[in-house]
């Protein structure tokens, strides 16, 4: 073989041995993932968070394109010019924008902008500015149901997480699963087709269809806003449910917060009072005890009681709310005039053991299981720690703390035939392929029988029709309900000037029965539920009957 050929082969042999050594070094001696995936790009593909719709498929929460505007201070030219131009578009004053720009830093987040603002900023052609694409939650109806929906914030890793309400409870369903794209790329970042390509598609979050009706929600929010201002209350809540299924048709609490700017509000605004606050329900509790006594056949609606004056329990005297006594009154009349003395009689007839067992059956001190994040169970003291006075005061809703959702659920059970149901907000869950999972009403237990239920329902209708206060009721419709005025316990005693006024009422008109609980905290125009919460309930009921197109029964 000629010497030139040998040299040629020798040269390639040395190159070949060098390559082998280098590969040996990378793959065996200095094995690390960095060396292997230098040209292997791995991209996380973020899924789209599920959307939230009302019962008519009208959107309550959507996703929208947004952009994180960032600054690279070392690359900017005229700082003053940039501040002047940016502050106009971002509507931030020049001083705060200037304070944000720290020239020692490489990267500064300026704010989140929408597409329109992004285009305006881009048209300025300022160096040192950049955008990072983000998907943010968008609320086409603003904060129509802030407490119910919750909001999306960040966790410690900077990932989106749902907090409170639906966003918190269904976070895993809404979040979906991220996908990955692994592909070998050349030096210019182009994919190498013969190289390694691997893609795991992201699974978008599931959409939720709520039992809430946007139109009812908007109407109730408006009415509650007017009610709070008219009665000068501190706050208020209205919950409307279908008593037969315990589907939540509307839930509004005021004051609420702006979900888009949740970071501007303190945490107390995020709590949903309907599921997270305890209160003494007062007289709206009376029908529950009455229903229990009827179910146990201890009393009948036309039984009579001699109401001649206050009743003494131990060292305490229990009076009627107006300290007036009618003499011989029926059980129905006890509810109509909301007699505490009468209720003590009913409680005594029922007996302490039965009374306590019904409180447990109604679900007090237990979670209702509603699909909202932040529910508390409250606390039902053990029976052996109850004094005789406790068994008396509980009959008219004092000395027991419940959440509004527990209250409306137990009330629904006495007018729906006796069934205690799990309240629910989400009616359907839809995956990205369009498959829907329907959430069915869930009966937990039966508390009273059909006959007792229809008796108490009739009594409650008579409470509205024969009550002492003549409310502006929608004419021709049959409505039942009960007022409640609970005093607020402060440092071991009840404050006589601070009350929680409430009204719980229902319409059984098919095909859209509804049960609504109206609560006003510390109304100043009148402390009584009959003069504040009740008129507000009837205004709401009137609108609901019209919305559901229910014809009057007695035109």
């Amino acid at each position, binding site marked *: 073989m000629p010497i030139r050929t040998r040299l040629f082969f020798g040269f390639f042999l040395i190159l070949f041995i060098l390559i082998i050594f280098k590969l040996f070094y990378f793959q065996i001696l200095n094995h690390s993932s960095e060396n292997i995936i230098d040209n292997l790009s791995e991209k996380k593909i973020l899924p789209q968070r599920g959307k939230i719709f009302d019962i008519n498929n009208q959107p309550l929460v959507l996703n929208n394109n947004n952009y994180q505007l960032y600054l690279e201070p070392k690359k900017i030219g005229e700082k003053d010019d940039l501040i002047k131009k940016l502050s106009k578009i971002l509507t931030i004053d020049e001083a705060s924008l200037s304070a944000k720009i720290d020239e020692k830093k490489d990267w500064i987040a300026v704010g989140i902008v929408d597409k329109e603002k992004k285009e305006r900023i881009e048209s300025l052609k300022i160096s040192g500015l950049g955008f990072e694409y983000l998907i943010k939650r968008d609320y*086409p*109806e603003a904060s129509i149901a802030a407490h119910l929906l919750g909001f999306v914030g960040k966790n410690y890793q900077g990932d989106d997480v749902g907090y409170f309400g639906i966003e918190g409870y269904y976070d895993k369903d809404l979040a979906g699963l991220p996908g990955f794209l692994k592909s070998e790329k050349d030096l210019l970042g*182009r994919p*190498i087709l013969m190289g390694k390509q691997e893609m795991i598609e992201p699974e978008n979050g599931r959409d939720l269809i709520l039992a809430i009706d946007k139109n009812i929600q908007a109407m109730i929010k408006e009415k509650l806003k007017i009610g709070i201002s008219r009665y000068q209350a501190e706050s208020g809540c209205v919950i409307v449910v279908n008593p037969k299924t315990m589907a939540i048709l509307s839930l509004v609490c005021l004051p609420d917060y702006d979900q888009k700017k949740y970071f501007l509000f303190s945490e107390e605004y995020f709590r949903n009072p309907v599921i997270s606050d305890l209160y003494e329900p007062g007289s709206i509790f009376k029908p529950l005890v009455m229903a229990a006594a009827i179910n146990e056949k201890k009393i009948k609606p036309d039984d009579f009681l001699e109401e001649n004056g206050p009743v003494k329990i131990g060292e305490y005297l229990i009076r009627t709310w107006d300290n007036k006594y009618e003499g011989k009154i029926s059980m129905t009349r006890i509810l109509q005039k909301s007699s505490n003395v009468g209720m003590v009689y009913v409680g005594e007839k029922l007996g302490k053991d039965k009374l306590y067992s019904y409180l447990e059956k109604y679900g007090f001190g237990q979670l209702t299981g509603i699909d909202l994040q932040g529910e508390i169970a409250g606390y039902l003291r053990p029976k052996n720690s109850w004094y005789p006075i406790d068994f008396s005061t509980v009959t008219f809703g004092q000395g027991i703390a419940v959440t509004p959702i527990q209250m409306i659920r137990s009330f629904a059970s006495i007018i729906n035939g006796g069934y205690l149901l799990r309240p629910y907000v989400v009616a359907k869950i839809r995956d990205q392929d369009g498959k829907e999972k329907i959430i069915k009403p869930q009966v937990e237990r039966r508390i009273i029988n059909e006959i007792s239920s229809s008796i108490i329902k009739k009594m409650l209708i008579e409470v509205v029709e024969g009550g002492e206060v003549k409310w502006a009721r929608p*004419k021709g419709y049959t409505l039942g309900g009960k007022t409640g005025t609970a005093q607020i316990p402060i440092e071991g005693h009840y404050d006589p000037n601070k009350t929680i006024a409430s009204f719980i009422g229902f319409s059984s008109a098919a095909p859209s029965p509804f049960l609504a609980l109206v609560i006003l905290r510390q109304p100043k125009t009148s402390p009584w539920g009959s003069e504040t919460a009740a008129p507000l309930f009837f205004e709401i009921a*009137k609108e609901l009957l019209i919305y559901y197109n229910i014809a009057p029964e007695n035109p």
Partner: protein
Amino acid sequence: MLTKILWFLVAVLLFFNIYVFVSNLRMGEEIRAFDKKIVLLRQENLDLETKIFKLNSYENIASIAAQLNFVKKEMPVYLEDLKYAYKN
């Protein structure tokens, strides 16, 4: 003769190799362009979806009403006594 055939084969293989390499590059470029287009389409889709839903929202209706100087009706009129309606 054999050497000529071998050179010819080497030339064909070389040409084929270059062709595959160039088409690979072109396809890679196309994939990158399509990827970008898909992202843009998805964003545009999201934008349009939001716009459609916003058109139907109470917020939008309220802002249009304000622009048109609509006045809030203070007391709605309800058909309370429907006897008259039923008579006809």
